[in-house]
């Protein structure tokens, strides 16, 4: 028996007769939705970057008029000189855009949508229409957040962590509408992720192609599955908190305002109960895709597939027990601090497993350093630095010194940029052909990689030193403090590196757009990979397969002695392979 779904798709795959609107705007095709997410969130990535550049200008050249800053209104930068209230808006919006509108949608919005059906062998998501709503509520959230930069009293300005009561009362923050728009926007983000997550989970559980057993899933799919569970359970808490914050702001409720009986730490508990799972939402998909790319680049099966899966689950599970490590100095009961410290340190263990398994995969491999591989290896190298710096903060006595200093800023950029963003650069290049049917330029890709890698480290590594000096975060003008004045040269060096880092991204930008038209046409399987997606033409047609593929083996059978070439796709049937029971049941 074949499903209505299947036949419905077959007809589609033949002649795609949908109107332009249905096809590209209100599309329900998971690939189109993925690509929509890609464009929108890359746009927000640029926004986040531009905000960062302004911050870096102020930190490197405090009080000096910013080149081109003249175009900014008086309320932000009179004569191009950034105002304190504008600076904290920059910090807040930079963090918010990067986390909620760039990295999270890039990892989950783009690659969960694009990869899951292609890699598990499904025609589409379980609920394509819900999937479309998920995208559009993300867009609404993004536009609301963007608009808040242009309202009279300016955008939200309490840090991306929005600590109350600063965020809850406009007489404290100096912004009312901006703060409210932040809350509203975050509620939409929450909705978007919840809708997405339930879609991904259902699809992975129920719509796998015959033979695609749980332990034949690529690690990218495993990590996206676990990530979806985290998102499903963490974002409602953020939405709930954001709603209460919004009520404090517009209905004068008293959740977070101690002046009238509310509790300031309540917000922190709610936010971080979401927040730490969130940071794993921001790394697990990256880890998954890096695993796929490293296996491909090493032409070797992933080392310790099962322990990789258990490590993902372990990280996700522990991720629920550690939120207090952001609150060691908050006045939270120190005994709680002790237990949060231990649970936090334990996360080093599954992370160790993953790190060493990636190395084990490269060990005795036949390494092809194509651009995705370069970024994947850089991911491992950089994530480890970020992860290890996490250990310092996890140790409560040390955190007492480095909490809310640039040591934290260094940490979070090593895991988020060195980790997530490098993985994303790799993933974008790796699946670009399957999205657009063309390859991105290899040469320019390498140039972009090396420049980014160098300037990235020049930008963020010195921040560890600043942190060790006690340089606080979120300060508009470090030179206010005598003990920080000697570090101004370093701040300037960081700023210059940051500008060059941003400039290097233009190469990627151009490469990306240029290749859309002029890139060399990609064959069906340009990277000689094993995943099901490579059994399709590039770009993959609407509805993906006419007849679902059957899966005969795990995703990482590189250099298998069974075949001459050094890869063996999951969908390739060898004479020795038997049809999986499910395929017979499905009447294949």
């Amino acid at each position, binding site marked *: 028996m074949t499903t209505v779904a299947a036949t419905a798709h077959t007809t589609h795959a033949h002649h795609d007769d949908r109107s332009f609107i249905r096809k590209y705007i209100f599309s329900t095709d998971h690939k189109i939705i993925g690509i929509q997410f890609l464009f929108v969130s890359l746009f927000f990535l640029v926004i986040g970057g531009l905000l960062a550049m302004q911050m870096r200008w102020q930190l490197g050249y405090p009080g000096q008029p910013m080149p081109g800053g003249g175009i900014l209104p008086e309320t932000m930068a009179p004569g191009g000189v950034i105002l304190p209230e504008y600076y904290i808006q920059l910090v807040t919006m930079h963090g918010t855009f990067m986390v909620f509108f760039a990295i999270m949608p890039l990892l989950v919005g783009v690659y969960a949508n694009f990869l899951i059906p292609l890699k598990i062998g499904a025609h589409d998501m379980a609920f394509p229409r819900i999937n479309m709503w998920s995208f559009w509520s993300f867009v609404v959230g993004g536009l609301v957040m963007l608009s808040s930069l242009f309202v009279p009293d300016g955008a939200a300005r309490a840090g991306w962590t929005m600590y109350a009561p600063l965020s809850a009362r406009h007489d404290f923050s100096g912004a009312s509408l901006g703060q409210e728009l932040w809350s509203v926007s975050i509620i939409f983000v929450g909705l978007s992720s919840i809708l997405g997550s339930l879609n991904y989970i259902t699809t992975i559980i129920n719509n796998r192609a015959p033979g695609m057993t749980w332990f034949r899933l690529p690690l990218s799919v495993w990590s996206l599955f676990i990530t979806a569970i985290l998102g499903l359970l963490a974002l409602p808490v953020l939405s709930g908190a954001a709603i209460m914050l919004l009520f404090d702001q517009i209905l004068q409720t008293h959740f977070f305002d101690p002046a009238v009986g509310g509790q300031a730490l309540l917000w922190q508990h709610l936010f971080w109960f979401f927040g730490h799972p969130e940071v794993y939402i921001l790394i697990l998909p990256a880890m998954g895709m890096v695993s796929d790319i490293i296996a491909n680049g090493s*032409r070797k099966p992933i080392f*310790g597939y*099962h322990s990789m899966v258990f490590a993902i689950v372990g990280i996700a599970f522990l991720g629920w027990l550690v939120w207090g490590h952001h609150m060691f100095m908050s006045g939270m009961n120190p005994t709680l601090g002790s237990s949060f410290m231990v649970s936090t340190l334990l996360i080093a263990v599954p992370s160790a497993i993953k790190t060493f398994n990636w190395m084990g995969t490269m060990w005795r491999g036949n390494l092809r350093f194509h651009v995705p591989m370069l970024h994947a290896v850089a991911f491992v190298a950089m994530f480890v630095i970020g992860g290890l710096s996490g250990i310092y903060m996890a140790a409560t006595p040390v955190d007492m010194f480095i909490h809310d200093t640039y040591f934290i800023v260094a940490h979070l950029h090593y895991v988020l940029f060195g980790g997530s963003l490098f993985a994303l650069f790799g993933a974008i290049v790796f699946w670009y052909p399957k999205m657009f049917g063309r390859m991105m330029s290899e040469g320019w890709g390498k140039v972009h990689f090396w420049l980014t890698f160098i300037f990235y480290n020049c930008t963020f590594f010195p921040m560890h030193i600043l942190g060790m000096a006690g340089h606080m975060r979120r300060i508009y003008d470090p030179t206010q403090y005598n003990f920080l004045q000697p570090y101004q040269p370093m701040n300037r060096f960081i700023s210059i590196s940051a500008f060059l880092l941003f400039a290097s991204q233009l190469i990627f930008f151009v490469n990306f757009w240029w290749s859309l038209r002029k890139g060399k046409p990609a064959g069906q399987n340009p990277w000689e990979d094993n995943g099901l997606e490579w059994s399709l033409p590039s770009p993959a047609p609407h509805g993906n397969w006419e007849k679902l593929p059957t899966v005969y083996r795990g995703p990482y059978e590189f250099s298998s002695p069974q075949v001459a070439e050094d890869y063996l796709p999951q969908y390739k049937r060898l004479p020795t392979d038997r049809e999986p029971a499910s395929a017979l049941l499905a009447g294949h």
Partner: protein
Amino acid sequence: MRWWLPLQGSTFAGEVDGLFVAILIITGIAFVLVEVGLIWFIVKYRQRPGQKAYYTHGNTRAEVIWTAIPAVTMVALGLISNHYWVHIKGRHSVPPNAYPIAIHAKQFEWQITYPGADGQLGTGDDFTVRNQLHVPVGRPVVVHLSAEDVIHSFFVPVFRVKQDAVPGMEINAWFEATVPGNYELGCAELCGLGHYRMRAQVFVHTQADYDAWMKQAAQEASQ
């Protein structure tokens, strides 16, 4: 410009820095292991014509080793850190003879109340000074932190001490200064547009100087 931690100005600064160094060593080993390993593999196993990768799905022994070692190290590190933590910030860590000072944080200043001659807070001779923290050397000091409006954070780098001041809560933090001198106190929690300039001077006096200052400051305050 120092490339290392600031001067150690309190009794537990040494402990904090010691732990920092310990972690630096542990993570340093892990760091070298990983990065050198990566570079080595990159060079040694780079693609060569005719070379085929070694076909393996893993090795349980190796897995066990690199699971167990970090696990043990982390548990040990946790226990050691907790020992210091309890000593520095634990519920009953404040020394009984500690000298009390009340610090009230508000946008964007530190209102610092001294116990006056009788060494007791909440008595008639208390007096308040803005943005100046004077403490005696070699004597435990306990600060009673409170906040007027939003969350601020009491941070003296040389003492390695940090503690948020939260509206609606009174939180105690203690330290014992060891080196007389003039330092800075900063606000470490974003508290609004003036966050960056919410700083105060810290003066660590010998007991004699401190008493002298106290007399004079009390007088000025009373006028």
